[in-house]
Every structure is written in structure tokens, then in C-alpha cells.
């Protein structure tokens, strides 16, 4: 495979990883964000802190613990090998696990903010009209938090694309399996291929700029609608 082939494989793999991660997080983080937005329990701040940990921890810390967890000698890693016949480390599925943890706050926080903005009285109105809490969540809270969902998905996708440290620790660099574009860029630099590094870095800068602009435009339209 040529150089361009290598790169396009990495781009497809990265998009696939970010897409799967976004979908998994959408399903997992929505109930969590809803709980965080509505709960008044005393331990809520601690749950919030755990959710935000990936924001401040060095990715290598997360990667280190995940390596231990994924190792065939551990309970999870061992069970995985027994069940599927392959290891979690240095595999695409392992990367998805890692990315879900690593990108969790990027899905939870915009959703939580959007859910918090949903007026409690509208939910009371829905229940007075015979809507169960789940019904009211699906038919009132979610449509009103639509922009929050868009922001959360875009940020999660983009953040997963920008993942490096965790991938390096648990994924390595297997073409088509774990070799995502941030790893490719790293290898370009390592092997002094600066022209290719330039192109790829610029591509990532443009991509990130477009993504963030989209998010801020969404937020601005949201503010206008509330005003």
C-alpha cells in the first residue's frame, strides 16, 4: 500500500472510531446527563467529578489503567479473551472502550447544560396532561435539548478524532485496526517526513476550526431563541 493509501486507511479508521464512540456515548451519557441535570442527591458532585476526570487526567494515566484492565491477566481482559478469542489491547474494540471513557465529559456536559435549561414547569405540565416521566423526557425534554444533543455529538466526535495518548498506550499502531491519524502524524514526525506532517496537521487544524465554529454558531442561535 502506498503512502496515500496508508493515510486514507487511517482517516477511515479514525472516522469509524469517532462515529462508533459518539453513538455509544449518546446512548450511555444521555441518561447520566439527565440524572445529573435533575438530581438533588448529596453525592451528585462526586459523580460530576468522576465524569469530568478525563478532562484533567493525563491521557497516559487513563491509558495505564486501561492497559491493566484490558490485560488478559485481569478479570475483564481475561473474560474478553475467553469470550471472543482476541485481546482488548491493541484492538479496535479496545480503542472504542478507551475513547468512550476519554470522551465522556464531552458528551455529558453539553447535554447536562441543555437538560438543566429545560423548565421544570414544562415537565409538570406534561405530567398533568398524563405523560409519564419517560414520556415527558422523550417528548418534551429531548426536543427542547436538541441543540445540546448536536453540540455534544459534534464535540465528542471531534475530541475522539484528536485522541492520541490513550491510543498510543492501549492501541499501538496497527494499520486499519488502531493506527488513527494522530498516530500517523506522530510517525511522520518521528521519521522526519515533514511535508506529509505539514499537510496532515493543517488538515486537522481546519477540521477542528470548522467543528468548533459549528458548535459556537449553534450555541449563538440557541441564545437568540431564548432571548
Amino acid at each position, binding site marked *: 500500500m502506498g503512502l496515500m493509501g496508508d493515510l486514507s486507511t487511517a482517516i477511515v479508521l479514525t472516522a469509524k472510531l469517532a462515529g462508533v464512540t459518539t453513538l455509544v456515548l449518546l446512548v450511555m451519557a444521555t441518561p447520566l446527563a439527565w440524572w445529573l441535570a435533575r438530581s438533588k442527591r448529596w453525592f451528585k458532585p462526586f459523580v460530576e467529578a468522576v465524569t469530568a476526570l478525563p478532562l484533567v487526567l493525563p491521557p497516559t494515566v487513563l491509558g495505564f489503567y486501561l492497559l491493566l484492565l484490558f490485560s488478559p491477566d485481569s478479570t475483564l481482559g481475561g473474560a474478553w479473551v475467553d469470550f471472543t478469542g482476541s485481546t482488548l489491547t491493541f484492538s479496535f474494540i479496545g480503542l472504542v472502550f478507551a475513547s468512550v471513557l476519554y470522551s465522556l465529559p464531552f458528551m455529558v456536559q453539553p447535554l447536562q447544560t441543555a437538560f438543566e435549561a429545560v*423548565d421544570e*414547569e*414544562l415537565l*409538570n*405540565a*406534561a*405530567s*398533568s*396532561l*398524563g*405523560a*409519564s*416521566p419517560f*414520556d*415527558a423526557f422523550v*417528548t*418534551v425534554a429531548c*426536543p*427542547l435539548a436538541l441543540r445540546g444533543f448536536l453540540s455534544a455529538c459534534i464535540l465528542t466526535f471531534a475530541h475522539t478524532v484528536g485522541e492520541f495518548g490513550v491510543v498510543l498506550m492501549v492501541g499501538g499502531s496497527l494499520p486499519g485496526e488502531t493506527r488513527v491519524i494522530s498516530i500517523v502524524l506522530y510517525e511522520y514526525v518521528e521519521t522526519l517526513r515533514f511535508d506529509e506532517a505539514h499537510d496532515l496537521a493543517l488538515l486537522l487544524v481546519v477540521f477542528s476550526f470548522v467543528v468548533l465554529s459549528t458548535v459556537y454558531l449553534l450555541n449563538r442561535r440557541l441564545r437568540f431563541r431564548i432571548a
Partner: protein
Amino acid sequence: MTLHIDMQVTAGEFRLSVTETLPMDGCTAVFGPSGAGKSTLLRGLAGFQFATGRIQCEETVWLDSSRGTDMPSHTRRLGYVFQQGQLFPHLNVEGNLRYAQRRASAAASMQWDRVVKALELDAMLARKVQTLSGGERQRVALGRALLSAPRLLLLDEPLSALDNQRKAEILPFLERAKDEFRLPMLYVSHSLDEVTRLADRVLVLAGGEVKALGETVAILERLDVQSLTGTFEAGAIVTATVFGHDQTRLLTSLRFGDAVITMPLLLHISPGQSVRLRIRSRDVAIALQRPEGISIRNVVAARILDVVSDPASPYSEVLLETGSEHLRARITRAAAEDLDLNPGLRVYALIKSVALGKPDI
């Protein structure tokens, strides 16, 4: 058929404790000064606010903390009209109405045409709720609550966010909803005008406790209740019969008790019909002789039943009787003393202004 309430709500320093049995028909006004716990009572009944005790609506127990029963709001089958309407902003008018209709029983969803017709919602079905005026919004909110086919309608100051003109526009719709759908209503208000027009009975709430419960006319006459509701709006309600319209002077004449009074033309009420009038205490003055050369035209012979003075207030409340009807006057304590007003004394009540109350059928 009754609504049995034995409910306590604690919110910070505030404590509401209500033990009362209300009939499940007609309109019960929940009346009192702000901070009395009126909304808290409604929210407790709806299940929006944590409450303890026992609530039983007809044969269904909504709340019984001693047995751990607490039916969630959406199973209590109640309609709730909020102060601000709380229409769903992501749905248009029709969407809001259908939201309620879809969750009601099949028989109840037949109500669509009746509700849309009674509240004249037809022309606004396709509109976004953000474009509705305050009055229209409350009409949609009322229609939405009716379409959910509730067995009890709770209205939490539905007109308080509106100006007087909008209030006057929507009151007839509330009256129509009450007559047409025959739903028991609990109506929270601190406006005597609304209470007079809509309520069959009044529950007076102050400081989280029930101060009085009774028929509207009787309650609004009681002096102790008046002092709770604030003397500014205090007044009496009389039932009067229209006997003529004066088209040139734009006045309608009405008779109540032995008295005849006039008020600005009420063309929609034909002669012979009865109306309820509310006459505020502060609009009634007292004279010992029939005054001459005065612009006030409504002068009514009356007998003093009671004079209530509070040393802490510069004012006295005077309860008057004319025929079988009662009037109330608010005058200064000094005037009451100087004129030597005492029960039994025959005086003239000078009525400055009269407001129309709930029509009697």
C-alpha cells in the same frame, strides 16, 4: 363526591396545613394574600410538590403517607393551568392540544370539537405558541387542560400575568368552560373580581392555614375574612335585577333590596335578569341624612349591622343592611366616632362605583 384534603407541606420556613373536604362540583376559589400558600396547596394536590398526609379524590386515594401511597402526577387525572401557561415551545397550538388529547382516554378525545369551539381556538391552531398574546396563551392552556379529560381542574392564578383588558377578554371563556364542561375547579386567585365572577364557594387561606370556607357571597361579607384579604379590595356582593337601560345617558338601572342604583350601560343583560355586583368598601361612604347637591347618584337607605374598629388602623369597617342585601363601607375611625355610628342606626350609603360580578342564572 368530594375531594378530601388532609395535607401538610413544609418548604423552608413556610408550613402549609390544610384539612378540608370540598365538594367535587362547581368552582372553589382558593383566596388569600400572597404568601398564604395558595399555589403550594395546588402544587401539593397535583403532586408537583412533596406533601405528607392524605388526599382522596372521589374514591381514589392520591396520597396516604401513612401507607406509603403517593400517586405520580400523571396518574391523578387532573388538569393544571399555570400562571404562565407553560405551553410547549417546540409545538404549535395544535401540537399542544393534541399532546393532551392523545394521552386522554378514547371517549375523552371526542371532546376536541367542543373544546376548540367553546374556546374559539380554530383560527390559531397552526400558530407558533411564541406568537400568541398572553390572553390567547391562557386560552390554549385552558383548552389543553380540558382536552386531557381531567376529573378536577386546578387553575393557579391563570389571569395574574395579564393586564386588565386581557383579563376581561378571557374571563368569559373561563365561565363558558365551567358551564359547558361541568368540571370541578379549584381556582387560585388574589383578585376579588375573579372570585366574585367565577366561584361558587371560597376557601380563604392565610399563613398556610384555612381561615374560612363557605359560599362566595357569605364569605366575602365576613368582617374577619375582609381583614385577611386586605381592606383595599374588601367589599360586598349583592344580587341585583336589571330593570331598564337608558340609551341616551348610557346607564342601566338595577334594583337590589329596597334600593335602585344605576351603572354604566350593561346592554348584554336584558331587563328582568339578575346579576351579581361587587361593591368595594372603599367606594361606599356613609351619611346620616340623604345628601343634596352631590355628584354621587347611588344613594341607598340602609341600617347599620356592625361596626368593626381596630385601634391599630385608622379605618373602621361598617356592615350595612338594605332589604335582604348587605353592603360594606370603609370609613375612617374618626368619622365613625364623630357620627356616632352604632348597630341599629339608619343611615344612607353613598356608592361611588359598582363592578359586575358572576352572572346568576
